[in-house]
Structures are given as structure tokens and as C-alpha cells.
């Protein structure tokens, strides 16, 4: 799969033809070039619709005997914990049986599985990961050109709930509520892509030039700094540049987005550990996110429904999800832990809500979901013993027609990085392999490619 490579010159031409000429006396063109000088695919305004990538996370896995489908291929049957996804069955692919080989390292509860799945290597803590998480890699490839490089969301109200890291010490903090999401995306900086008039606001020019002034400090500071600090300063200046680019975008009329319908602000809503409250906040955020995507505000997103050591609870019960997975007896008649089963099933309901929210937006010939690829996963399969074999994963969306949905693929113990590799390639990141040591894989899951 190739995407359109544009030279600087013909991009400029397209820029003029595609929208009103903008004369602000600043060299805008470099705002749309990444560091290698190759232009970002300007794939809207008459061209193919942009592809979006996202992750969706829930904690404490499943009860595998009740989640892993028994049949493979399209039309796979839905076991009890997957029953909630029935309304979106054909839109979701299930990837079971992909595992994390530990290479003799300890299995850190609620850490090893997740770090391996997202970064391609097992780490002892998130602060010790050796590579950025795959959503950051994808954002690097396709994220620029939209106002937000990514939108990181947490339904639990805590900005520290995030599994998106650029590096070990750089976690991308989450937007922790629907209200904040609304304000961030549809607040004062929002440019309606379908507005008839566009007048570039000189304040963005000024803000941008102020930041360029900050960037100009770079050399002086770097000279003084030691090696370790240079890396940190590098990161800081890269971040400044990222914001400069964002502000530059504001100076150009955004291409129209027919699917964009500006929502009204949500009223103040609750966040909490009660599973019903969590689901309700999550649904609100999913709907806002869908609108944000339809309005081309970002191409990459992350949603955490519950943290790895799931904090979900039911009011009046002393024991929540996480504790139940460890302490609850297996019911002799049922053959599984009823409370743990309950929470996993409710988590799947939330996943169904998320998929439905994306599928509800009509876009182009199909839906927003058709132009997305979402990777849903947990940190473990059977949480009782933090099992990192057969970590449950799902894909939703067809990535603009590149991906097949509604099938079940069994990994048979293959490393989870096969799936990571698959999504990276699907999103146009030029990689042939991904991951390190036993997690290194060069074999994507070809069954999901069209």
C-alpha cells in the first residue's frame, strides 16, 4: 500500500486550488512538512478520506473459556462474554491466542502484558519501556495535518490513566472527562471545517511566532547542557515545534468535512468507579470523540475504559473487579468466577458502545468506522493469575477498505507483536518487523488484510 507522496511544489499548487488563497505574509508551507521534508498526505478536500487509528483498553482481561470464540473465520460464534458485541458483530474481528513470551523475565502483574503489546518489548514498569507505544508510532506517520496529533482519553477521570508513551519518561496524559474533551476540541480554538467564511485570525500568527522565538533558544541551551539533559531539551523543543505546527494549521482554511456536525456541550457528568457511572461517562466521551474524528480534529486516539488493575466496582459491594479476579471462588455449579465474569462482560458492553459510536457517523460512502482501525485489548487474559498468554485483542473498522472485519483469527501462541505489526502496516508505517527478542515478528496477521 502506498500513499501519495507529494513534493513541496505540487502541494503548494493543490493548496491554492483546494481552498481560498490565504495571504498572511508568512511562509506557511513548512508547517505542513515533517522533519524529512516530505509532505503529509493532504488526503481530504476532494481526495480519499483520512485514515484514523485508535486503541481501546480495558483491564483485567476475561475468562478465556467464556470469551475466546470456538469457531474461526467470518461469522464466528459469540461466547457469553462477547454477547454484548452482537449489534456490532460484523464490524469487529477477534484475535485470540496471541501471547507474550517473557524470555525469562518476571511477569509483572498488570504491566508485562500491556507493555509488551504496546511497545514490542516486556518492561518492568512503564517508566522503563524502551520504545514508544505503537499509537505514538502511528501518530508520527499519520498524525500531523490534523489539529491534534492524538486525543488520549480516560473514562475514569484520572489524567494519569494512559498507556500512550513517547518514551519512558514521557507519558501522554489523558483527557479525563467528556466536558474537558468537549472544551479541548470544540472550545475557542475550534475551526469549523464547514464554515462558509474563513478569516485567518492574526492571533494565531502571533502565538506561532512567539513560539518560534522560544525555539530560537535551542542552540544556546543545548550548548550548556550535558548529554542526558540534551535528550530532555530535545523533547521539549520538539514539543514546541509540534505546537507551532498546530497553530500554523489554524491559519489555513480547513478542508470541508461533510460528516462534521458540531455537538452541544455535555452537562457536567460524573466520573467514578461504579461500573454504570463509568459506562455512561465512557459513552459520552465515545460520542464526542466520533464527532471530533468526523470533523478531522485528529487521526489518532486512545481510550482507556478501565486501568489494567481494573478499578470497576458495584455500589455497596466491598470487593471490586480486580479483587474479585484474585479472591473470588470459582462457583462450583457455574465453573467460573461470577463477579469477575460480570465485570468482563460489562467491559465488553462498553466496547460495543464505542464501536457503535464510531459506526453511527455517516462518512463518505460508509461510516466513520469504515475509515478507522481500532485495536482493543487488555493487559492479561485470565486475571486470576495474570496470564499473559492469549491476551484478548480485537480490531474494529476497515481502515478505508484495507482491513477485513468480522472474522476470528487464532494466534496459537504466536507473539502479540504480530498484531502490532499488522496495525502498523495497515496504517502505512513502513516497517517489515516489529518488537525485540522473542517478541520480534515479521509476520503480520495476513488473514485480516483484504
Amino acid at each position, binding site marked *: 500500500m502506498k500513499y501519495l507522496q507529494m513534493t513541496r511544489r505540487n502541494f503548494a499548487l493543490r493548496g491554492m486550488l483546494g481552498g481560498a488563497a490565504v495571504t498572511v505574509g508568512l511562509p506557511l508551507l513548512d508547517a505542513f512538512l515533517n522533519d524529512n521534508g516530505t509532505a503529509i498526505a493532504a488526503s481530504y478536500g476532494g481526495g480519499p478520506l483520512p485514515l484514523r487509528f485508535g486503541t481501546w483498553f480495558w483491564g483485567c482481561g476475561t475468562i478465556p473459556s467464556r470469551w475466546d470464540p470456538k469457531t474461526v473465520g467470518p461469522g464466528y460464534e459469540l461466547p457469553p462474554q462477547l454477547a454484548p458485541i452482537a449489534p456490532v458483530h460484523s464490524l469487529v474481528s477477534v484475535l485470540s491466542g496471541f501471547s507474550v513470551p517473557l524470555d525469562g523475565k518476571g511477569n509483572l502483574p498488570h504491566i508485562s502484558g500491556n507493555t509488551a503489546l504496546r511497545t514490542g518489548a516486556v518492561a518492568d514498569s512503564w*517508566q522503563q519501556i524502551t520504545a514508544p507505544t505503537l499509537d505514538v508510532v502511528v501518530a508520527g506517520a499519520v498524525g500531523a495535518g490534523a489539529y491534534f496529533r492524538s486525543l488520549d482519553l480516560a473514562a475514569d477521570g484520572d489524567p494519569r490513566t494512559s498507556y500512550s508513551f513517547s518514551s519512558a519518561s514521557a*507519558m501522554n496524559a489523558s483527557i479525563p472527562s467528556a466536558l474537558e474533551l468537549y472544551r479541548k476540541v470544540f472550545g475557542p480554538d475550534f475551526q469549523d471545517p464547514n464554515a462558509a467564511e474563513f478569516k485567518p485570525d492574526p492571533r494565531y500568527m502571533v502565538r506561532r511566532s*512567539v513560539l518560534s*522565538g522560544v525555539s530560537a533558544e535551542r542552540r544556546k541551551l543545548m550548548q550548556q547542557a550535558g548529554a542526558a539533559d*540534551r535528550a530532555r531539551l530535545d523533547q521539549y523543543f520538539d514539543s514546541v515545534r509540534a505546537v507551532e505546527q498546530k497553530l500554523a494549521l489554524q491559519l489555513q482554511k480547513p478542508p470541508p468535512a461533510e460528516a462534521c456536525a458540531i455537538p452541544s456541550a455535555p452537562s457536567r457528568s460524573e466520573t467514578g468507579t461504579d461500573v454504570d457511572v463509568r459506562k455512561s461517562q465512557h459513552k459520552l466521551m465515545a460520542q464526542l470523540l466520533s464527532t471530533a474524528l468526523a470533523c478531522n480534529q485528529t487521526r489518532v486516539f486512545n481510550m482507556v475504559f478501565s486501568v489494567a488493575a481494573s478499578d470497576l466496582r458495584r455500589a455497596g459491594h466491598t470487593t471490586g473487579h480486580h479483587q474479585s479476579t*484474585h479472591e473470588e471462588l470459582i462457583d462450583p455449579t457455574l465453573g467460573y468466577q461470577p463477579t469477575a465474569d460480570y465485570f468482563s462482560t460489562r467491559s465488553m458492553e462498553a466496547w460495543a458502545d464505542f464501536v457503535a459510536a464510531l459506526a453511527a457517523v455517516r462518512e463518505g460512502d460508509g461510516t466513520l468506522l469504515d475509515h478507522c482501525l481500532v485495536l482493543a485489548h487488555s493487559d492479561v487474559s485470565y486475571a486470576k493469575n495474570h496470564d499473559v498468554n492469549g491476551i484478548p485483542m480485537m480490531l474494529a473498522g476497515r481502515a478505508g477498505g484495507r482491513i477485513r472485519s468480522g472474522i476470528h483469527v487464532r494466534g496459537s501462541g504466536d507473539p502479540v507483536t504480530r498484531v502490532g505489526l499488522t496495525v502498523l502496516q495497515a496504517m502505512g508505517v513502513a516497517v517489515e518487523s516489529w518488537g525485540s527478542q522473542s517478541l520480534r515478528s515479521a509476520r503480520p496477521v495476513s488473514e485480516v488484510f483484504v
Partner: protein
Amino acid sequence: MMMQFKLSTASALLLLLTAMAGCHREPATAAAPPGLRRLTEAQYRQSIEDVFGSSIRVVGRFEPDLRVDGLLAVGTSVVSITPGGMEQYEAIAGDVARQVVDSENRDRLIGCAPAASDPQGRQCAAHFLRRVGEHLFRRPLGSEELEQAVNTALRASVQLGDFHAGLASALSGFLTAPDFLFRIDHVTAGPAGAQLDGWSKAVRLSYLLWNASPDEPLRTAAQRGDLDSTAGLTSQVDRMIASPRFVAGVRAFFDDFLQLDGLETVTKDAQIYPAFGSGSAADAREQTLRTIADLLVVRNADYRELFETRRLAINRNLGPLYDVPVPGKGWQMYEFPAGDPRAGLLTQVSFLAAHSHPGRTSPTLRGKAVREILMCQKIPTPPANVNFRIVQDVTNPHLKTTRARVEAHLSDPECAGCHRLTDPVGLALEHFDGAGQFRANENGAVIDTHGTLADASFDGAAGLGTVLGKDPAVASCLVQSVWRYASGHVGDRDESAFLHYLDERFAANGYRIPELMRLIATSRNFYTVAAPIKENRS
């Protein structure tokens, strides 16, 4: 050579010995590279207040601070700023700047405007930006730096058609500059090699003692070179410790050390603990900080008393959790009578509620917190494949007390290795439920609060408090934490000789926090710096 005493009294000998003990040479630590420490959210807000006063609101979401080796202060030496974080800073900066130049504030905060003698406002801009820049950057602006800022302001005022808007833009630039967002050490060549310049020393000192940027007298002292002499430095240290602002500095340390920011995400089950409302966690945090300020600063008590003190700050919101009459509205000190179950930090809601589950206690979490936070000991992570069959006693599913429930932690050899470090400590606190409320019994059964900690036995929270006070690990953990908080050093450096010295002095001075802070603030090691290591960039 033999010393010939002319003083015949034994007291002279005693004086001699005491003086010598007190005058041990401070062991040198290997100098660390110059610091680059990101401001925490609290420090950012304090800076805005220091420079512009409390009427300027800081609204927005900050990049979360990172806890490294148990301290956010150490994390400041590790983190940088992500693009998402930078977006936030840029937005907050713009908002602050707008408020500063607002018609309500500009007279007070800027104090000049374009006039006939200064039609573009260049002089006014220069005057304002120089003053504010020095305060924000915590060092004087270079002339080129100032010139650039002024030009930014004037250019922007042309583009925006408004002088004040232009000035706000330049101010916004200051607030997004690395010199503001990070505490950057500046190294000069001194007689003994690389040394910190006066301003950098002032910054280290001011953030240690006040958690704030240097105030005017300190800036003046820095400018004059006073901080390079012992007398000059000591004079500033004395002044700052005597100031009411020292309380803020001690509070900031304990807020970090005790990991009280965890209370921001504590929730309790509303049915099980209805008295723990939405404001309870924040009040509990404030309670502990006020109690510490009263005990360890105002009354200058022995640090170890923190684990036994029956005197604590309280307000009416917290009254129901403690089940005592609270006479006044607002914050007040409350003294529990001798023999009351409430005694010491470990019986405060901030500790009990933070290290429990939303609907019940957790002796393991509480014990782990005591070990890791108060004793600087590391508890290994639990194994992934714990055999829970043991914990689930199928013959008696109705275990009445928590001790009974977690019995298997201690009787099974697989689990006991780690759990014997945590559970006996946490079980001493079982008279306090998951919200920190006292309970005489649990499900009708008697609560047994006996335990041991390193061969010392105790019963209950008060007993545990006494035992903790006597354990040398507690004092030395505090000392090393204050040092690492002050220096921001990541834990890979061997500073044991210096820490040992600080331990001894801490003990000799009655385990008093202000004295410990003074000792560090006047130590050589606090201000040493190595020349930065350069590498060729390819």
C-alpha cells in the same frame, strides 16, 4: 603531639568532645551535573502568584508530575514536556498573560503605557519585561534576550493593533520558555572549578525552604554575591527559616514524601462509607499537612513524635469520620485524650483511606505504605501466578475479621516472604476501617492488633507508632528523602557517607526538621556541581 589541658574541669573536656562531634567535616559527595528540573504544577502556580499576585487565575490541566524513587521532586529531573503538555502550557500562558494586561490589572502589574515620550511603548515594554523576566526566569535577562522580547512585543502589538495585547504575547513567550518551565542551573568557572552562579544557588535554596522562586531580598543577595560566603548564605537561610513561608516549604516536602497526591484519586463506596464525601479526601490531605506544620515547624518537635501525636488539625467536614465534636467552624487543632485510639500519622484519615480499598481495609497496602514510604524499604511485586487456592478457605467462607481473611498470606511459605513484611504492620491498624473511621469490632468479632516489626512487638496504632519512632530506618528514610527532595538526584549515586553524616546530625539535633533543612541548606554538597559532560553529536 600531646594536648596539654589548662582547663581542669571535666566540663571543658565534655565541651571539647561535644564540639568535636558537632564539627565533623561534611563528607563530600560526587558533584552532580547541572540540574534541569521541570516545575511541578504547584511550583508553576506559586510562581504566577509570586510574580503577579493571587488575583491571577491559573486555569488548565498540567502535564502530570512523575514520581521517581518515591519522590515527585526527583521526577522533575527526569521529565521533559510532551506535545500535549506543551499545548497546555501554551494555553495557560496565553490566559495568564491576558489577565495580566487586562484593564483591571494593568495599572497595578505593568504600571506604564505608551506615551508621548514613548509612542510605541518600547521603553514601557522594556521596563516591564526586564522586571518580570528576571522574576520568572529566576535570573537577570541578557541584553539580547530582553531586546528580542521587546521586539516580539512591539511586532505583535502592530499585528494585533493593541499595545497590551502585544505585551501579553511577549509575556506568554516567557511563560513557555524553558528558562521558566525548568529550573536550569547556570555554571560558571570558579576558583575551585565549576560552580553554580549566585542565582542558581538562590533557586536551589528557595525551592528547598519555600518551594517558591527567590524573593526580592534573596535575589538581591544573589546579585551581590552574598551566597558565595558562609555568612551571607547563613543569613539568608536564617531569614527564610524564620519566615512564615517556611511552613509552605515543609508542607511541600511532606506532601511529596507522604505521597499525599494519591488522595486526589481516592474514592470510597458511598453505601459502605457514606460519611466519606466528595471533599473528604482533600480535607484529609490538608489535615495532615496542617498537623505536620503545627508539630514539626511551629512547635519544632521531634520528627518521631509524628507517629504518636494525639494532636491534629480538624474541621467539621472531617468530624464525622473521627466521631468527635468539632467546636469551631474552619480549621482548628484538636487533642485526643491519652489512651484514645487515635494517635499518630497512621491513624489519620489521609493515611488510612489512601491505602485501603474503596469498600474495605487492606493491611497489605497499609503495611506496604509504611515500609516503602516511611522506611524507604522496597517490597517486591507480587508474583504473577499466585496460588489463591490457599487464600480461599473453602471450609469457612465466612471469615469475620480481616486478619482471618489474610491469614493465609502469613501461613503459606510462598506468600509469607513478602507478606510478613507488610501484613503485621497493616493489621495493627484494623480498628480503622477503609475510610479511616474507628470501629470497636469487625462483624461482631474482636480485632486483634498485635504485631512485630523487626523484633519489636506492639499492640495497636499507638504501639506501632512508638516502635516506628525507635526504628532507625524511619529517621534515616526521612533524612535521605529530604536530601533527595532537595537535590533532585536520581538514585544511582552513592551518597552514603554524606547521608550518614546527616543522620548523625539529625539525631544530635533532636530529630528536628527545621534544623535538618538548615543543615542541608548551608551544606557544601547542596551547591556543588560538576561541569556538564559533552558528547559529540554526529
